[in-house]
Structures are given as structure tokens and as C-alpha cells.
């Protein structure tokens, strides 16, 4: 589904990703862990098409297409979704109206008719339940005045509405209390499917108690330096990242 090969990316001339390779097959959940500054969020941003980052080398193929050639909206239409670490507040733009417009632009890109009002409202009703998002919040301005937990739930609600093939979660767990974390993780779990994959970027192992990954990768200095199963996350939780750093002292 997603094939990242030797990816190099920089921001403001500083190289952050230094040859990252990652293979994600349909239905798999990959956790990306690593110390601060290792490039986790950069990977998420580059996959979503953030133009602040410049890809200098390597390739990203998504469902057989060159992802790097697409702009952010085309990536969304193709089935990529990024849940933001810091969801943006957009005063005056209603959550519901923008989602409807987004769904219809994707449908148009796929040669489909616009969604009917009835079908859309039914979807909103069902999917907002997945993350226990209050109906009042779905109708408000995007993220405006939402608590931290509400913002993250709104991200997962949007993901549920847009039905991506690849969901990228950028530190969705950061700053959440255990109740909010459980709600968000349950929402993600309900969206797991044989043809839908996830890349879960996280700093803490805690999230992976709820979203059980198929693979855990450790990102260090812009490269994946270790890959294992979910037990690798537990080891990182117990021993920290120092042993990774020592194993990977730059030559």
C-alpha cells in the first residue's frame, strides 16, 4: 500500500529525514516511535504533503502512484489522512459544512455525484458516536474553543467521515488523559479494516496498549534503526531510548 524508500527531507535547509525506508501493507498498523527530534512528525508531514518540507531524495509510492507528485488535496482524494498533532482552529468555518465540501470534492475527483443531505447526516450521526463526539461540537466552527481531547476526537471523527485507506496519526495521544486516550483509541480500532492501514506516530508506549500495532519502528536521526513487534514498544518504555542512541552513535 505505502512504500517509502530512502526518503530524505529537509526544512529550512536542515536535513531531518536521512534515508527512511518503510513498507506498509493493507490492514497493517505500524507504530513509529523515537526520541524527540528524531523526525517522527516530519515523516507524517511529508506524507500528508506539507509544503514546508522539501523532499531531496528518495520515493514514496502509495497504491502504485507517486505520492510526492500530488498536492495535499490530491493525496486526500487518493485516501491519505493525517490526524494532526496540533489541530488547527478555524473560526467561522463550520465543521459540518467543511466536511461535506471535502467529501464532495473527493467524490467529484472520483467522478461520483455529491452526497445527499440525508446520507451525509446519517454518516455524521453514526461516525460522531465512534469517538463520543457531542452533536453540538460537530456543528461548531472547526476546533474553535474545543478542549485538547475534543480536538483529537474531532480528528478521528473527520477520519471516520473521510474513510481513508491510510490513516496517519501524529502524536494523537499526546496530552490526553486516560479516558480521552481510550475514546480516541477505540475510535481508531473501530476503523481498522483489511484494506485500511495506519501509521501511528507516538512518543509514548501507552497508546499501543489500546491500538495494538503489527510493527513497531524506532526512528532515530532521520532513519528507522530498529523494527520489531509490539514487545519492542514495551522495551522502549522500560529502558528508554538511550540504548538505541548508543547502538547508533554516528560514525
Amino acid at each position, binding site marked *: 500500500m505505502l512504500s517509502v524508500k530512502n526518503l530524505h527531507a529537509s526544512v529550512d535547509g536542515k536535513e531531518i529525514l536521512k534515508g527512511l525506508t518503510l513498507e506498509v501493507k493493507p490492514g497493517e498498523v505500524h507504530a513509529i516511535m523515537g526520541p524527540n527530534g528524531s523526525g517522527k512528525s516530519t515523516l507524517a508531514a511529508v506524507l500528508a504533503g506539507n509544503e514546508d518540507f522539501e523532499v531531496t531524495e528518495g520515493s514514496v509510492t502509495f497504491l502504485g502512484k507517486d505520492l510526492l507528485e500530488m*498536492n*495535499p*488535496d490530491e493525496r*486526500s482524494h487518493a485516501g491519505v489522512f493525517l490526524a494532526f498533532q496540533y489541530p*488547527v482552529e478555524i473560526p*467561522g*468555518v463550520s465543521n459540518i459544512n467543511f466536511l461535506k465540501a471535502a467529501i464532495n*470534492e473527493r467524490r467529484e475527483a472520483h467522478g461520483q455525484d455529491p452526497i445527499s443531505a440525508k446520507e451525509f447526516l446519517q454518516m455524521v450521526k453514526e461516525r460522531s458516536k465512534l469517538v463520543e463526539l457531542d452533536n453540538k461540537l460537530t456543528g461548531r466552527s*472547526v476546533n474553535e474553543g474545543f478542549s485538547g481531547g475534543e480536538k483529537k476526537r474531532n480528528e478521528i471523527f473527520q477520519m471516520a467521515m*473521510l474513510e481513508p485507506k491510510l490513516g496517519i496519526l501524529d502524536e494523537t495521544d499526546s496530552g490526553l488523559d486516560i479516558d480521552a486516550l481510550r475514546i480516541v483509541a477505540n475510535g481508531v480500532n473501530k476503523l481498522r479494516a483489511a484494506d485500511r492501514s495506519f501509521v501511528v506516530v507516538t512518543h509514548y508506549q501507552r497508546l499501543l496498549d489500546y491500538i495494538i500495532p503489527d510493527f513497531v519502528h524506532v526512528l532515530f536521526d532521520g532513519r528507522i534503526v530498529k523494527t520489531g513487534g509490539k514487545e519492542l514498544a514495551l522495551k522502549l518504555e522500560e529502558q528508554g531510548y538511550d540504548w538505541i542512541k548508543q547502538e547508533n552513535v554516528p560514525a
Partner: protein
Amino acid sequence: MEILQDTTKLNALTGTLTDGYFAKVPAAFESRRNEAKKALETLEFPTTKQEYWKYTRTGQIANKSWRFADNFDLPELPISIEEITPRMVFVNGVYSEANSEMEDVKGLEISTFAKAKQGYISDLAPYTDYSLSPFLALNAALPQDGYAIRVSKNIALEKPINIINVYTGDTTISQPRSVIYLETGAELKITEFHIHESENPTLSNTALEVQLEANSTLGIDVIQKGNDTSYHMQQLDAVVAGDANFTHNNFTMRGKWTRNNGNVRLKGSNTTANLNGFYIPNGSEHIDNHTIMDHEQPHCDSNELYRGVMLGKSTAVFNGKVYVRPHAQKTNAFQSNGNILVSDDATVNSKPELEIYADDVKCSHGSTTGQIDDEAIYYLRTRGLSATSARKMMVGAFAADVLNTMVNPVWREYIEDVISHELSKA
């Protein structure tokens, strides 16, 4: 070094205008007309040396030989006016009865300005000094058809009245002059639509005088659809008595040169006055909104919300003056001007002027000018909206706060279409 502006006397301009048709004004207006003519003998076009005109040059108007139109045919319009009723249609400042559709309503007296019945015309005192806005003197000296409306005591008109002004021709000037008088407890809604339909220069120099008696309610939306050869000078003077409500909204949907003066005198206590505006200039267009809110009495509220979306190399001016007279305790006066610079080449000059002589008042003003939030655009794009759609959505949200104040939302879709069209080009 500033280039000196042409200071042609306005009188030279009026000399080229014939007043045959326009000699007819209500008898009660005759003395004011003569005063205006006299004032024109010495008045000159304003220059940027005058504070009131600091950012708006009038040279482009002064150096053209304007004349009244000789063709009053209604051109094809981008909107179908047939369904818009009741309506009065004016072409180049002259009433077009054939294209209008009015109905008899109890308590409503409506006619062209020239045919206005005596009585209330003479009651309307001029408020704005001609030296401040010489264009107003020009209008008063040679007024054309506008509307004259009087609503009787405690009559509330439910249907908004539509006033459609169309400007055509080459170097033509039109001078609609209108009055609205609401008796105690009366209610009225008006939409004025001004559209310039010519590839050549057209100048509309409009004046509206409003007098609201106690406890009456008036709402006016003015939609100005200009183009890159249009000049629009608009003057509003309103005198609002106690317990009355007045709302006036300007939607400036382009125009080479637009100047809106809106002056409101809150003459009684417990009145509310709202002046709002939205503008979306493009190219090298210039839009200037000047307001004066004059609080004379206690317990009055005034609100001003002006928002602009700046495209191309356009320039905008907002100047909001608020007077709170010594007697006007418990005044609430709010003012806000926000601008989005879609283009790096656009300029905004925003200036609040508060003169407060009472000590127990709440007055605030805010002015913001910024770019569209790139982060928000990116966020919306990751959800599948194109860059253009995302921009439209952001601007739509920004404009909505002003559009929500419309007194006659029937016209909202038209305004939103123009906004969307302008942003598609940007």
C-alpha cells in the same frame, strides 16, 4: 514629494451640466438647493491635504468632463429583476416606471424625490457640512430622481422595498437623491442595488437622508456592484430619535473608486445604530468607508463592523469617528475593522477616531489586517479541499459576520456569488 492634485472648482463641473429636467424639486427643497448652488461657487474638489480625504484622491473625477446621460434604456443585467418586488428602477438617475413594480400599501407613501409630498422634506435638516463633502453640494444643487418614502405611525412594512439604480453611458454622472421618513413606531426595510454597466467611466453621486422618529426601525442594505471604470460617491445622513433602531450595511462588490460617507446622529436616548460594511476590491481599485457616529444622548448603542478582502493592488480606507457628547452617559460604542490581504500588493489604511466627553461609557475599537492563515488552508487541503475552495471557505467565514447583519437576505446569494467569482480569479 506629493503630486499636487487638480483643484478644479466644482462649479466648473456644474457649468457643463444642464439642469433642464432637474429643475423640478419639491418646493420645500428649493431653499436648500439654492444654498447648495451658492456653496458650489467657492467649493473645490477635496485634496489629500484635508484630513477627511487624506487617503482618497479625487483627481480622476475632477479631470473628467462629466455630463448627464441622454439615454435611459435599461441594459441587460446580470440578475433578473423581474422577480424582485416591490421595486423602483432608476437608469442614470432617472426613474424608469416601465421597469418598476410597486404596490399600494396602507401607510406607505412612496414616490420619486421630485414628487415627494410636502411636509417631511422640509423637516430634514442638512447634517453634513458641504465643505467636508463638496460632492454632497453637487448632488443637492442638481438632484435627480431618487426615492422618497414616508411610513405612517405604527405601520410595519413586512416586504423589503428594492431600489435598483443602473448606470450606463460614457463619462455620465448620475445624482440620485433620496429621503426616508419613518413616523413613530414605523418599520421599513430597504435594499439599494447600484450597478454600473458600462465599459466607460460612470459616476454615481448619491445622497440619502434618513429621519427616524421615536421607536421606529429602519434597515438598509446597499449593494454596490461597480467595475473597473466606475466611480461611486455615496452619502448617508441619518438622524435617529429615541428608542429607534437604525441599521445600514454597505456591500462594495468592486468599483474603480468608491467613497461611502455614513453619518449617524443619535438624537434621542435608548437608540441603536449599526453601520456595517464588506468590500472586496481587485486590481487597482480604491474603496473608502468614512463613518461618523454621534452620540448625543445617554443609553445608546452603536456598532460598526467593516471587513475587507483585498485582492490585486487594491487600496482600502476605513475611518470611523465616534463622538460621545458630555450628556451621553452609558453609551456603548463598538467598532471593528478587519482586513485580509489576499495579495501582498494591497494596502489598507484603518483609523478609528474616538472623541469621548462623558465618563461612564463603554467604547472599544479594533483593527486587524492580516493574511489568510496558511496553516488553516493546509489543514483544509489535507481533508480534500482544493486550495481555491479552502481560500473561499476561509474568506466566506470572514465575510459571514457582515453578511449575517443583512436586513434582506434575499440578496445574500448574489453577494456570495460575486465573492466566489472574485476569489476564483485571484
